[in-house]
């Protein structure tokens, strides 16, 4: 499902609520950025040590129970960009991106920056297709692995 499909404002908390109440297997926050080159994939800065056992978990640490599956998801996405021969540079970092910490499920953020420093490349159809294709393939690949891990 799309959290939003137009230029509407949905609070960051509400985005996490939508993902959690719909029991999404995977949450991907897709952003465009103008700094750097290629695609950056971000996971939550929480670690497994932050995980809280039990039925009720703190809102700000909801992601902690899913750190491993998020890392698995991120690794598959990076791998897909690398092997897809799309010539899109890709890097993986933990980053404090809202609302990743609030999502109870595998979650990551993807920031798409210009391909070779020129901002116009962000609107280039073949670049967008390459990113979408790599993401879609990665999600298809990772789904059974995440379900098995859960």
């Amino acid at each position: 499902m799309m959290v939003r499909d137009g230029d509407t404002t949905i609070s960051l908390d509400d985005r996490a609520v939508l993902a959690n109440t719909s029991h999404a297997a995977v949450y991907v926050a897709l952003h465009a950025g103008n700094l750097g080159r290629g695609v950056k994939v971000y996971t939550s800065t929480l670690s497994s040590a932050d995980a809280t056992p039990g039925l009720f978990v703190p809102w700000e640490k909801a992601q902690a129970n899913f750190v491993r599956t998020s890392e698995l998801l991120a690794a598959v996405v990076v791998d897909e960009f690398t092997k897809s021969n799309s010539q899109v540079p890709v890097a993986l970092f933990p980053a404090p991106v809202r609302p990743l910490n609030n999502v109870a499920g595998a979650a990551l953020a993807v920031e798409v920056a210009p391909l070779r420093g020129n901002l116009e490349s962000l609107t280039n159809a073949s670049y967008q297709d390459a990113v979408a294709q790599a993401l879609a393939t990665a999600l298809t690949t990772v789904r059974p692995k995440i379900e098995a891990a859960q």
Partner: protein
Amino acid sequence: MIPRHMQIAVALALSGIFGVAFYMLHLKDTAHGGSARLSSDSPLAPPVAGPAVPITLYIAYDGDGVMRKRTASAALPSDPGARAREVLRTLLGEYQQTNSSHPLAGGSDVNDVFVVNGSIAVVDLNSAFVEGHRSGIWVEALTIDSLIATLAANNPAISQVKFLVEGKERETLAGHADLMALYDVAQVNQLVRRLE
């Protein structure tokens, strides 16, 4: 015919009203002048006097997407919070220079830094800092990491950092980076080492 004593009473009352009105206008002008001085960009406290000492800055480089350690010098007060503020102001000074490697908006400043229990730094940013900050995950994360790594490099006892804006909590720096979180210095330093 109005009696003479009534004329005198009305004249006294009118002069009293005008007198009070003029006095109130004077008070209003004085108060307005005071608040204008408070809201100006000029520093409220005199610069720190004393010999400059070496400090460590972690400078973000947008172009290369890296963080580099650099030594600078600044006169530092003895209070840990005031020291931390001066260190961060030196860092912000670097970012507000022409040809900065990671430009921040003019007027970006740190109002205060409070060091709680010797290990938690609460950094109060001014509104110009966040309102003029560029939006994007990477650019916002670089700012946060640079501030935290610089703070910790100059006070190794700091293990956690919390950000406020004008004394209040704010959801994100410029739409992406979390400002509600209590940042763990060890985690940030781990990432900064990858970026060096």
